[in-house]
């Protein structure tokens, strides 16, 4: 068993025991430490779930709301909010925000220091029908992520300026480059093929160079049929 498999098992079930896993743990201090850490996390999760979530009760049971008035008021407010949203959130802004939200949701993606396995990279790319001319040892994180209704490759690439997150978005078209700075990240979304590529770095890192390289390195292959049982979100 390799570390990657052991870590998947430990993260999925910290109390799992199996001959193969135990044998791996005997010889791997890093995975042993991870298991101890995840067992502690799991105990906290169990404790947190023991009580029902604390949810405010919006209205007394059985109370009948004056729904006609509420519906009318809500309709007016919704219409105004929708108009405002269309005006404020231009498509590229919305895309940039979604990208930032997605990347912030995977903080562990920045932590990789070693190249991930070729199989992981292959899975992340092929799930979306993407080819990439990039040395695999520069890729320290590779997942196929569910984003805006499609599986997209989510990579972290080591650059001379530090790690850069890359999302290859074949279904998201942008007319021109969109620079943004949000959530402590600097990013750019550039048109590429029929879609686009988003590159983000933490702080004020260099994204232009990475984006320019990737536009040359990406190949758009025939898109495979998406399968709901694919393993990422």
């Amino acid at each position, binding site marked *: 068993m390799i570390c*990657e498999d052991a*870590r*998947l098992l430990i993260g999925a079930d910290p109390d799992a025991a199996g001959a193969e896993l135990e044998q791996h743990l005997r010889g791997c201090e890093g995975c042993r430490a991870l298991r101890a850490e995840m067992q502690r996390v799991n105990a906290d999760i169990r404790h947190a779930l023991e009580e*029902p979530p604390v949810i405010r009760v919006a209205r007394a049971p059985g109370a009948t709301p004056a729904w006609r008035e509420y519906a009318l008021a809500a309709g007016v407010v919704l219409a105004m909010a929708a108009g405002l949203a269309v005006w404020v959130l231009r498509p590229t802004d919305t895309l940039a925000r979604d990208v930032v939200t997605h990347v912030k949701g995977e903080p562990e993606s920045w932590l990789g220091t070693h190249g991930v396995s070729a199989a992981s990279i292959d899975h992340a790319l092929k799930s979306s029908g993407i080819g990439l001319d990039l040395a695999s040892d520069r890729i320290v994180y590779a997942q196929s992520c569910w984003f805006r209704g499609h599986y997209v490759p989510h990579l972290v690439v080591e650059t001379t300026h530090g790690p850069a997150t890359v999302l290859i978005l074949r279904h998201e078209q942008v007319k021109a480059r969109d620079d943004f700075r949000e959530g402590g990240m600097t990013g750019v979304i550039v048109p590429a093929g029929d879609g686009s590529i988003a590159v983000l770095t933490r702080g004020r890192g260099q994204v232009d160079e990475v984006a320019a390289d990737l536009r040359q390195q990406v190949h758009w292959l025939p898109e495979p049929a998406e399968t709901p049982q694919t393993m990422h979100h």
Partner: protein
Amino acid sequence: MRNPPVQSPVSSLGERSRAASARASLTALFESMRPDLLRFAQWLARDRSIAEDIVQEALLRAWRARDALKDPAAARAWLLTIVRREHARLYERKRLELVSLDDALDIPDRAAAASADAELLTLRHGIMRLPIEYREPLVMQVLGGFSTEEIARELELTNTAVLTRLFRARHKLRGLCGPSPAAGAAPEEQPA
């Protein structure tokens, strides 16, 4: 051809008594599990009144299908499965009203945040904020006691997909669990 023996349409008093006793013990069993089911449903639905509806409907379904429950020891898992399916059915049947979680949750005030329970509350909010595809298998595993294989079967996913979702759910919550006792001893990445 001989006719089959005619059975009396009237059951004996003894049969009636036994049936009534079985019904009463099953009712008591179901009712004893209601708090567990409600908690499970609340973590799935994130809405108390919807969770109550789900449990009520699930118990009705369970009652109608009570003959399928051969072993009372398996009642908990059986009922939890029905609750999960009822939640999924409701989820598919109608788009549930979307509310801001910040509005729906009791966010701890400053005093509470300073207390020892703040970490636990933060973790609870973290669990509530997990997307359903992560929250559901996690709650099934930790609260329901389902194995990975059982979750995979129930959610119609591959084992690997379930492992990945559980892994990701825990990793998303990991940062909310406070400093590790072995702070600074983060596991070293090893090349695969």
